[in-house]
């Protein structure tokens, strides 16, 4: 026993030494703030004079002088400000829920005396999820803001601002029963789900639709506009988009405000193939669970090396973990795509990494928030120690695979140290997507470049429409320093020859076909009651089997993919004909997704009401009765137009 303990201790010690610590390279310190201030930070920016401006959850804007450690209140009373930029030392522009506002200190006394509305030319239903993000500013001073969709988990308010339009339902009807009209995140008033362009004088132009929750919006040093969006309906996983005017970025709710949308047409009834043909895919996907669950602001490293070896690269924050990611941008056949990897991970970093700004001295200032979700609060400052970590610094697609660039010359490497997998996320209206088509990809050739810092890798399969996930296995620099971060995910939309065809990304919802292979049920003999039948025992035509959302029992749960015609079926052998109680344990984050119940092919319940349980990790039983015959019975749940909940198990009981 003693020996076992000893060797475990040794192992842990060795692992820690090998991995190194992010703090060897980056120092993270907490910045003290005024007592009584709710330190949920909506925006951060440095003024030309080197002071920091920050806006907070309860509507305050403070200015912090790093030299004197002094905080002064600049403005207050704002409505959930979620972004701030400085026009000069006395003028700040903030995006708050209802408008883009210019805060002006006209008498130079240190606090704003003029709150000028630059633009409020967009609608608000009062739904809590209608956050307003930005602004990003382009070279000539135009502002770009992102408007969230409303949550299907909540309604609109009796009074709204702006026009109401929602697929032929009146505002009063919708207010009383929004679930009847929404089902998914919705855009009931202009221009929810859009990026807007706002000129300094207030002229407001709809710029690009297709967003769900565009929390991060910013330009890089090459004047490209980037926007992050959050996993959910129509987003199989979280994404980073390179945004250009007029393109559609995938969430169809906002399309009702294009001016071309047929009034009354419900995007939820349109086959995804139609949207897929119009949409522009994300440049980078953040795999849910391993990379980011809620990406936030994007910021270019403009420090020219003061913040380390990644000048001009993009950084992106993450809400759920203490993590900042790096983006390795690649231009392939005229398209922007690329890879993401953890950059600063842990090491004393707060959770809820929401907003960032570089100080004139090249230190990175970070602000956290949570708004009652996963996240954190507080202000931190990160400085580079001057030591360069062993890291992947570049990843470029080639005809045969990838060219990788590291910060230091590589030690001896072989093909098995570069473990590739690929998978894809389905484009559909269901919430999120499992990783589909997951397979290991073989490395067929490996060649280290002259400097020793680059390596060319050839792969045995290279196709568009996949995330190529690379795990570095004990890859070290020549001096044996191990790579600090070892997981990287490249989003391959387009091959070097321009081929971007990826028909596997869309579900064929109209026919009920699915990317999940049909699975046969394992017949179960009923012996004692109550008897629990895991979803793993059921046959499936359409639903996939998953275990990403916690709280399930048994091996996992079934996840309906398409809208209708999919089924889940248990086969049980009853020793006598009788009425049995059927309890289906399920989870559903929002809306209603009724399923039909068929016993032995006969429809016994047209519409079993699977109502929302509040969360994908909240499981409830839906109980009904059914008569089973003696011998074999098929108990089938079938989707009837509204997809289905995640189904964990069936419990059979006798009365």
């Amino acid at each position, binding site marked *: 026993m003693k020996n076992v303990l000893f060797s475990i201790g040794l192992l842990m010690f060795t692992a820690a030494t090998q991995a190194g610590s992010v703090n060897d390279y980056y120092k993270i310190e907490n910045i003290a703030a005024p007592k009584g201030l709710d330190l949920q930070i909506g925006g951060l920016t440095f003024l030309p004079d080197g002071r920091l401006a920050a806006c907070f959850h309860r509507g*305050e804007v403070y200015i912090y002088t790093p030299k004197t450690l002094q905080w002064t209140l600049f403005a207050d009373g704002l409505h959930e400000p979620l972004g701030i930029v400085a026009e000069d030392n006395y003028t700040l522009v903030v995006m*708050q829920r209802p408008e883009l506002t*210019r805060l002006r200190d006209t008498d130079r006394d240190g606090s704003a005396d003029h709150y000028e509305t630059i633009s409020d030319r967009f609608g608000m239903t009062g739904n809590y999820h209608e956050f307003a993000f930005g602004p990003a500013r382009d070279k000539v001073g135009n502002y770009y803001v992102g408007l969230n969709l409303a949550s299907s988990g909540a309604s609109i*308010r009796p009074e709204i601002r702006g026009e109401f339009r929602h697929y032929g339902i009146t505002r009063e009807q919708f207010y009383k029963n929004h679930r009847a009209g929404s089902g998914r995140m919705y855009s009931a008033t202009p221009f929810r789900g859009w990026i807007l362009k706002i000129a300094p004088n207030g002229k407001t132009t709809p710029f690009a639709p297709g967003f769900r929750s565009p929390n991060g919006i910013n330009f890089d040093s090459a004047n490209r506009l980037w926007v992050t969006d959050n996993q959910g309906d129509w987003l199989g996983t979280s994404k980073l988009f390179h945004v250009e005017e007029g393109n559609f970025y995938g969430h169809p709710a906002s399309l009702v405000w294009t001016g071309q949308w047929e009034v009354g047409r419900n995007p939820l009834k349109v086959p995804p193939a139609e949207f897929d043909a119009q949409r522009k895919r994300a440049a980078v996907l953040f795999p849910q669970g391993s990379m980011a669950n809620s990406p936030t602001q994007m910021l270019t490293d403009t420090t020219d090396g003061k913040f380390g070896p990644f000048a001009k690269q993009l950084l992106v924050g993450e809400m759920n973990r203490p993590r900042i990611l790096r983006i390795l941008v690649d231009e392939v056949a005229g398209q922007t795509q690329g890879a993401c990897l953890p950059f600063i991970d842990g090491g004393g970093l707060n959770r809820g990494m929401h907003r960032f700004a570089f100080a004139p001295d090249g230190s990175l200032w970070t602000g956290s928030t949570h708004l009652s979700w996963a996240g954190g609060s507080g202000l931190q400052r990160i400085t580079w120690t001057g030591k360069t970590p062993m890291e992947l610094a570049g990843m470029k697609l080639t005809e045969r695979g990838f060219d990788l660039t590291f910060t230091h010359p590589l030690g001896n490497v072989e093909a098995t140290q570069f473990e590739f997998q690929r998978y894809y996320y389905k484009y559909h209206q269901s919430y999120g997507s499992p990783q589909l088509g997951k397979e290991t990809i073989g490395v067929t050739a490996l060649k280290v470049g002259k400097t020793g810092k680059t390596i060319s890798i050839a792969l045995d399969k290279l196709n568009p429409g996949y995330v190529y996930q690379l795990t570095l296995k004990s890859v070290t620099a020549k001096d044996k320093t191990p790579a600090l971060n070892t997981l990287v995910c490249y989003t391959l939309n387009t091959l070097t020859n321009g081929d971007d065809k990826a028909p596997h990304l869309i579900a064929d919802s109209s026919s009920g076909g699915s990317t999940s292979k049909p699975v046969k049920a394992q017949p179960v003999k009923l012996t004692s009651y109550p008897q629990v039948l895991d979803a793993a025992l059921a046959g499936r035509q359409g639903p996939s089997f998953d275990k990403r959302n916690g709280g399930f029992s048994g091996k996992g749960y079934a996840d309906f993919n398409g809208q209708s015609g999919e089924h889940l079926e248990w086969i049980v052998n009853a020793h006598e004909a009788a009425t049995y109680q059927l309890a289906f344990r399920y989870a559903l984050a929002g809306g209603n997704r009724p399923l039909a119940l068929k016993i032995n092919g006969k429809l016994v319940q047209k519409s079993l009401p699977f109502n929302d349980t509040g969360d994908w990790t909240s499981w409830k039983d839906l109980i009904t009765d059914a008569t089973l015959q003696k011998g074999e019975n098929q108990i089938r749940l079938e989707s009837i137009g509204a997809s289905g909940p995640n189904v964990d198990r069936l419990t059979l009981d006798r009365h």
Partner: protein
Amino acid sequence: MCGLLNNKMRSLTLAFLTLALPLFAAPLKLTLSTVPGLQFDKPRFTAEPGQEIELTFKNPDDMAHNLVFTKPGRRMAVVQATISLPPDPERIINHPAILTQTPTLKPNASAVLKFTAPKAKGIYPYVCTLPGHGLLMYGAMYVGKSMPDLAKDDHVPPMARAKGANTNLHAWPHRRPLMYRIFMPDASPAAIAVALPHGVSYCWDAGNCRLRYAWIGGFVDPMPVWRGNGNGLAKIIGNKFWTAPETPPLQVGHAQQKAEFKGYRIIKGHPEFHYTLNGLDVYEHITALSDGTGIIRNFRIPRIDSPLSVTPGHGEIDAEISKGVAVLSSNQAKAFTITHRHQHEK
């Protein structure tokens, strides 16, 4: 000024005195002050049964107040009974539920009330019975009873309960004027709440550029919005005394009117709202009446060159009102005021 007890109470107390003298606690000395916004500085205090009390009642507010102790559960009965009384600066009220009272105190006056706490354990309300005050300006004397959490105490006014619930909302001490852009009841999602001095507050709606309502008492409890992700409404603390009519307050000419919000300037801590009506600049600056009885809305329309129809709702304007509408000449419309006063509850 000496304490006043009705005869019945006095004889009861005397009887109790002779029987239970050795158990008496030391006399209780305390000060109770008024606070602008129809509040007492102490929403409650405790006393022992039969304890001698020497209470100094101070009125630093800029309006008159009194202090009346009643029998348990009889505060509203006393308040209702006094509403119809004619104003009387020195009045003493005769009501069987009153234990003791001060006369009405002018601003900056004070009085000492000496009395004996009842021997019966209970929660004895105290209240200012001046018309309109009794619904908000009250507190509770806990005699021989322990007090619950302030945030959950139904015997204190809602604003005192809210104080118990949120003590530290910002990094600065509570101040008035104070402004929040926040989700408010009975307004569009682009609502603005402003707390003015003297306990008056209002809701101005940037969604349709108009004042929606005004209330007296505390300000708002913002926590239903701030606690989470915004899926809530701020809660008004106090009583609404004015609500806007459905008709827009200002109409230039007869054309369909489009209002656009332009923001606000801060003038001595108070916002002056700026909006346009069909392109015409309108400014509205709202302050509290200096006696705390309501609000005054100062309008400026510098470039108006045609008559203006004003629908003030229940309010005062220096013009003739016919069918709820006052028509101002373009000259009058360049600068005018509307006053809304706190109406006494009937």
